[in-house]
């Protein structure tokens, strides 16, 4: 299943990369890309969408506290 979120406020591609790696290592997430330029997080998941999106949000806010996350 595909899941897309808009993540605003990621400061640089480094942070994006860091978030991406942490999310990819989550259980139930097959792949994740966070594109710095389009500010879009694209996930391919096989687990429970609800709990994954909670975990994803936590990861993003821990790495970039001022990030704004909206589900698409």
């Amino acid at each position, binding site marked *: 299943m595909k899941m897309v979120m808009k993540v605003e406020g990621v400061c*640089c*591609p*480094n*942070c*994006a*990369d*860091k978030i991406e790696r942490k999310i990819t290592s989550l259980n139930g997430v097959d792949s994740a*890309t966070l*594109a*710095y*330029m*389009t*500010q*879009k997080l*694209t996930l391919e998941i096989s687990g429970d969408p609800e709990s994954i999106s909670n975990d994803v949000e936590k990861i993003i806010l*821990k*790495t*970039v*506290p001022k990030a704004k996350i909206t589900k698409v």
Partner: protein
Amino acid sequence: MIDKKEAAEIIIGAVLLAAGLVIHFTGGDALTEAILLGAGCIICGYEVVMECVSNIRGGTIFDENLLMTIAVVGAFLIGEYPEALAVLLFYRVGEMFEHYAVDRSRRSIAALTDIMPDTANVIRDGKTISVSPSEVEVGEKVLIKPGDKVPIDCKVLEGASSVDTKALTGESMPRDIDAGDELFGGFINLTGPITAETLRPYGESAVSRIMEMIEDSASRKASSERFITVFARYYTPAVCLISFLVFLLPVLLLGGAVQTWLYRALTILVVSCPCALVISVPMSFFCGIGGASKLGILVKGGNFLEMLAKTETVVFDKTGTLTKGTFSVSKIHPSENMTEDQLIEMAAEAEFYSSHPISLSIKEMYGKAIDPAVVGASQNVPGRGVITEVKGSAVHIGNLKMMSAMGHNATDACCKGTKIHIATENGGYLGHIAVSDVAKADSVLAVKALKEDGIKTVMLTGDNGEVAEAIAKEVGVDEEHSDLLPQDKLSVLENIIKEGKGATVFVGDGINDAPSLARADVGIAMGGIGSDAAVEAADVVIMNDSPANVVSAIRISKRTMRIVWENIIFALAVKFVILCMAVFGYADMYLAIFGDVGVTIIAILNAARCLSVGSTVLKGSITDPDYPKTNISI
């Protein structure tokens, strides 16, 4: 767009720096100087330190905020007050510029893709009401007034007009349309009102699919984009270590002065900030892809742009790609006991179920409606033709291979063009119909330009040798393979891929090209958004049907890659030189600031150049803004 608080902090910082410098150089009170500059540092540096602290809490230690914090605190401790504030101030200015530039390029690409129609005028119960395009159902009638965007993919029922297709195709000439023509959502109606019937739901319409493609492109990162983030992951801690050693070793081993070596170490920290690299690389790809979409070229990811830049061979499918793909009957050649009319009637009936361009041309030539009752079972023989029951007898229609497989005596050595032979099981050979296709004007331009760029061109076709050769000669391709069955095309392509060192690009348009599009290093689908399977399998989609845009796509990719590497090499070289100078005491903090902020700004401005793609358009092609004019002068 510019944050007021940010701007205010920078201005206050600048004023305090100026005041501090005046005191510093006029030999004023050192304490006043320290207080003024210290205040500046707190105002400008507060955010940086806070960010650094919150990042460390989040598990990220080494980033540019830490580099800056150490450098500024260190400079202050050794009494270099003006330097401390200057570093901070320029760092903030650089950051602000960076955000501004990135934001601007985001916006300019968002503007490019602003092709989504806002409303649709749908006709329900005789009344025209304005609704959101997503509420319109398939098969409803919509009214499109002059100046309106076509809301949804639809077919014209009434009215003639011309439409501006530029937003979708990059084509500058308006297209004339009439009843029966298909329109894509996002076209702009120019002259007269049209009533049209919707063909697809909004979500599957061309414009929604294009938007999705552009949005998704950034999620396919190029390997140089990945490389640079991985590089930065090791680079920043490594630089901190080097800087630490530059301070520690001379002081411990050589008995160097603490102050001198601390200053040098801090200079190294400042210069080696990786921002320039890290931001400019994804920005270049993003702008390159955005620029390409201005010309009606949709690239599905940075990785494909990177691959396109390595193009060694371009393999074209012939029909519909290099040629117009619309055939017309040029000759009807019946055997003795048939008339031309009888032959074309039988052919049209036998091809009743086929939607192959050649079949369409035969049916068009026949010109009359076919009674479905006379047509029986029909069987498609791939690469050969069709066998259809017509009025009770089996009609064999197709190429020479079809004839010999069925045991008919026929020859292609007659008139010009592609020959379609007709025979019946009982009546034997009945004659042939010759159809011909013409090359697109842009094909010649494109092949010529590819040659100039040192790229080999190959044409593949299922047509017979004579026809293929004529087109190959006209267009000027280096190599042609004819008489190919669909599966042969794939194996020829695989051979080319195997033999080549660089990337092999396949350009095709039809559903049967999907395997080749998927197999090639880069698959380019032509003819826009029409054929789903081809667009799905392709890596690049050319909206306006022009092979000249294949050249533009390759040139854009090369230009983007050049800019990417220019930035990487320029930034690393400048940083390395300044770093070496700093070790030996030849670089001060101000030079280091240039090595950080100055280089970042230059790299970002350079990356933004990827957005301007005008120079890659072939003169005289349909994408050329001067197209109608140049066309007349030829």
